[in-house]
């Protein structure tokens, strides 16, 4: 019998702590599949964020470094500069990358660091219990926007990917959504390209993944997928940004 589907070698045989319907499991797997495909498992160094994916290193089967909240791209910058022949990537949420770590994000991008960034945008802080994220939509109810996010009080959803795309050091930016098999296939292709760019020394590449958080969106997993497809993509349109 021919084996046509198995766990990627880059993914450990472990149960994750993620909530039912969470997008992190899909995103972890896509990263692991791409690393296997490119035969990078023994050459890759991942940098985990602070947030729901804080223990991503318990699920991936390759070298990983912790970073303080928001500092993944500073840590990754130094790892890559010290070991330019290794493949280095960060995996960060919206709070990590676009709130507390905005400075590190913009400057690593502006330096054109030859890094790959997987940016998981679920429009909320999951680990800490559902607070407003920089990417929270207008009107979206969170524990710190009980009446819904209001532009005059909390500003607008931050389109960090579009902002980064304006920088000359950034070579590739694409936004995909993890809400249907077709879209997940497209997300994997984008992640593949982002790693391939690094191998070709093209410079800074970022893939933003719109990812479901049923728990703190207060939805069923299926409704959360639909919410990305119908509502979130209006604010964060899918496709190649740069």
């Amino acid at each position: 019998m021919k084996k046509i589907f198995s766990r990627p070698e880059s993914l450990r045989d472990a149960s994750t702590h993620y909530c039912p319907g969470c997008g992190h499991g899909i995103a972890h797997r896509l990263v692991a599949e791409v690393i296997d495909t490119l035969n990078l498992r023994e050459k890759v160094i991942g940098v985990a964020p602070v947030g729901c994916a804080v223990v991503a290193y318990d699920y991936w089967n390759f070298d990983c470094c912790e970073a303080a909240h928001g500092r993944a791209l500073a840590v990754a910058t130094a790892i890559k500069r010290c070991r330019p022949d290794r493949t280095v990537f960060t995996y960060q949420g919206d709070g990590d990358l676009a709130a507390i770590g905005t400075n590190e994000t913009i400057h690593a991008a502006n330096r054109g660091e030859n890094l790959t960034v997987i940016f998981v945008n679920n429009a909320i802080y999951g680990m800490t219990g559902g607070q407003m994220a920089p990417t929270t939509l207008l009107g979206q109810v969170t524990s710190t926007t009980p009446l819904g996010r209001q532009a005059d009080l909390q500003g607008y959803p931050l389109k960090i990917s579009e902002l980064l795309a304006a920088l000359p050091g950034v070579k590739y930016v694409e936004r995909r959504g993890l809400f249907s098999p077709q879209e997940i296939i497209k997300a994997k292709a984008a992640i593949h390209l982002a790693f391939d760019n690094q191998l070709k020394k093209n410079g800074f590449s970022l893939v933003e993944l719109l990812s479901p958080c049923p728990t703190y969106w207060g939805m069923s997993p299926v409704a959360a997928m639909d919410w990305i497809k119908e509502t979130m993509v209006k604010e964060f349109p899918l496709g190649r940004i740069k």
Partner: protein
Amino acid sequence: MKKKDAKVLLSGNEAVAEGAIQAGCRFYAGYPITPQNELTAYMARRMPEAGGVFIQAESEVAAINMVMGAAAAGVRAMTSSSSPGISLKQEGISYLAGAELPAVIVNMMRGGPGLGNIWPSQSDYFQATKGGGHGDYHCLVLAPSRVQEAFDLMFSAFDLADTYRMPAMILGDGMLGQVMEPLSVRFPSGTDAKKAAKISKPWALTGCAGRKPNVIKSFYLKDGDLEEFNLRLQKKYSLVRAKETRYEGMMLKDARLVLVAYGTMARICAAVVRQLRSEGIKAGLIRPVTLWPFPVEAFLPRVSPARSYLVAEMSYGQMLEDVKLALNGRAKVGFIGRAGGGFPREEAIAAEARKL
């Protein structure tokens, strides 16, 4: 640096940078702040020559986290700053301690609190020796008092950091950073760059070819794991306390009165001791070189039998507390200190000493 035995004229800031490079430091990230800018500029020029990485970071926060990345990758790494910038680095230093990563942090202290001023100070002693960031941890803290010693101690700092897998701090002041003195650029005892490149770091992140994946982290969520880790850290700190204290004693054997000072203040106090001796007062000096671990043994009666001590600092009494703990009520302890730009003058220290 052509000849190893040549004398060169360097500022303390430059000597620290050159010492670091010769000790095998191959990663430096820093952010501009006075009075340590010569160090960053020196690194910008010298580090690429030495085949290392220099990055002007976007902030002090980014710089210390870059140091974390470089240390995780197994490279001798350092950053430098001055007081307000060091405050910003505290989170990162705590992570270095928590992830058991070796790195060197240089603080050329200036006046505080807040933005303070840019003049020499010793007001960050508590921050350096008692933790600074969150959690039960320590940095090894070395306090040079001369430009030559600043150069020499860089070798110790990197060696100690590697040996114990913990952050080491060079605690200087703006005076030491700025003053220029002749320096013999020769290898003191310690690991040089060639040997440093060969230090085995099996825990480092290099890609997991031929081994199980390495993970660098300070996160212990499972019940009991963090306590176990903290106990391991404490055991390491006990070992450091037992093995790594350093101090310089001057005329302690017959001293009736002992001055205690570190860094720039110790140089001033050495002159005071000579002055007092010329007056027939049996004075001595204890100059702690390691501030953490604090050289408690220097205060044992068999080393320093004096019954009166005078602590002098460019602060309002920080090391003073460690001196009192070391003496444990055995002797009278006086204090003289100034902060905010000035330092206690020789005559003022001598006058205070004569009262004891």
